[in-house]
């Protein structure tokens, strides 16, 4: 603790600005939570930011029973797309990143540069070309239309290459080979465990990017039963005019955010490592 060189007013101003930003971030989410608890017909009454006519249970059960319980299949679809997509893409990325870090072969840098360039191209740019191609192949409106693109994570390859060069010592791999382990065994038994922090980060980022994706599934899917929760809730919001009461998309949005909020707080340190790897090269 150094002597207080910064005057008290300065400290107050700094923390007040930070506090204001925190309010700006949290008020909408607080509003969503409060609104989700308001009983039928009371949404427009009382203070928008405080509870009245608390009836969360009834709202939630309505969300899950509306239209034959389609909301639970949306959640299940989101979970399927994100879990399978993140698991497969993590494995493929780590394998590719490991190869690019630990083997010397011709064309290595060229391949890595192509992958690196595609990290900078945002997903929306690929969505329409993908849609046109999938339509030609008659793969739209199928689970594969969402799953296949989600298996590819150039960012994951980039991250695993960096991580593998920094944390998997050549001597360790050499020693495993000397002991007669094959390349695959060396990778799965030796390299993969060492790289597990990177694995978690890649999985997390890909999981969130698939779960949060809207454009691709909105383009590809027609069947209500195949939609992820993002597209489903927007449909409920859009048929608001056709008799879906507003409390359904509001409560549905709140319910779908709860697991994300929990995971966000629980996994915070992995966020940071992914971002810093992306930013400070």
């Amino acid at each position: 603790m150094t002597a207080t060189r910064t005057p008290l007013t300065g400290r107050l101003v700094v923390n007040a600005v930070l506090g204001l930003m925190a309010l700006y971030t949290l008020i909408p989410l607080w509003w969503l939570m409060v609104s989700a608890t308001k009983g039928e017909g009371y949404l427009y009454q009382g203070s928008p930011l405080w509870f009245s006519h608390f009836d969360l249970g009834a709202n939630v059960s309505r969300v899950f029973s509306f239209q034959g319980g389609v909301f639970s299949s949306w959640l299940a679809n989101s979970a399927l797309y994100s879990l399978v997509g993140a698991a497969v893409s993590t494995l493929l990325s780590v394998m590719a990143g490991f190869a690019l870090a630990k083997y010397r072969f011709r064309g290595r840098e060229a391949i890595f540069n192509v992958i690196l360039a595609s990290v900078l191209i945002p997903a929306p740019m690929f969505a329409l070309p993908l849609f046109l191609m999938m339509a030609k192949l008659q793969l739209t409106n199928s689970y594969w239309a969402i799953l296949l693109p989600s298996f590819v994570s150039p960012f994951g390859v980039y991250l695993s290459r960096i991580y593998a060069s920094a944390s998997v010592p050549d001597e360790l791999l050499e020693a495993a080979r000397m002991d007669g382990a094959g390349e695959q065994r060396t990778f799965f038994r030796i390299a993969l465990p060492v790289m597990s922090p990177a694995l978690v980060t890649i999985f997390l980022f890909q999981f969130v990017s698939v779960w949060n994706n809207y454009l691709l599934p909105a383009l590809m899917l027609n069947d209500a039963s195949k939609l992820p929760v993002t597209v489903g809730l927007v449909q409920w919001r859009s048929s608001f005019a056709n008799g879906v009461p507003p409390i359904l998309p509001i409560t549905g949005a709140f319910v779908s955010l709860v697991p994300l909020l929990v995971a966000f707080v629980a996994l915070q340190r992995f966020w940071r490592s992914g971002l810093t790897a992306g930013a400070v090269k």
Partner: protein
Amino acid sequence: MSTQTAPSPARPRPRSGAGPSRRYRRRTSLNAAGFLVPFGVLFTAMMLAPIGYALYQSFFKVHRQGLFGGAQTTQFAGFDNFVDALHDGDFMGSLGRVALLGVLQVPLMLGLALLLALLLDSRSARFRKTFRLTFFLPYALPGAIAAVMWSFLLVKDLSPFTGPLAAIGIHTDFLSAGWVPASIGNMITWGWTGYNMLIIYSALQTVPGEVIEAATLDNCTGWRLAWHVKIPLVRPALVLTTVFSIIGTAQLYTEPAVLAAARIPGASNKFSPIMNTTLNASQADPNLAAAESVLLALVTLVLSFGFLKFTQRRTADA
């Protein structure tokens, strides 16, 4: 669970002489390929092939004989689709709209992100971890759900903002035609300021302590320290976040699309370039949509690389 190859007893010893033997090098290439191929195949099929296909499509046109289910012929069309795109008023209008939005919103958002990062990095900040986590939170939430939330939150009779604003004499409807672009800008700012702040903050953390100490000894503190020492040192992070934001704005889709889906009267379903291309793709003209995507990609590339080159030249001059 892996299928294990039998360990070969006669493994060539690498680095035993002048360098790795040719046989060893071929083995490494093969082994590397084994690890690279699964990703490579999918990468080619899901990223390179669609780009190629869209490029190809953009140079062809489908001609229909007769109105109802007549035979279709596909013909090479040269740059016709691109000319059509340049004459598509909706598409060009959306490019202009998004450019204007970007020019106003990106500096605002990044300025705010930089300010917050500097404040968090300053000695006066309390509860650093909590603030950092709070600011970053919206990034982890789906943009579409956030947009659904805002689409209710900005409705006049539901909004917690209408009352206080009316009390100080400002009567607004955030979802009226005039306000929709600003409301979309607000949604992007809400979602992405924390992400950008975290990138800049991480860069600030790598500034060596001795540099700050030396500056402090020279009586350079507070704002002067931030302006003369910290900001120049995190320039690369600022350039990076700017490029990301330019790309993100050019690709704007979710926020206006959700407002349009919610039938907000002031929100058009042709607000952003991507909304136009998807509309064309599913209805009128996939070839035009392909050409417009290619144009949009080119504009994005030119803008982001142009900005990079511009900042590099500025650095060289300085």
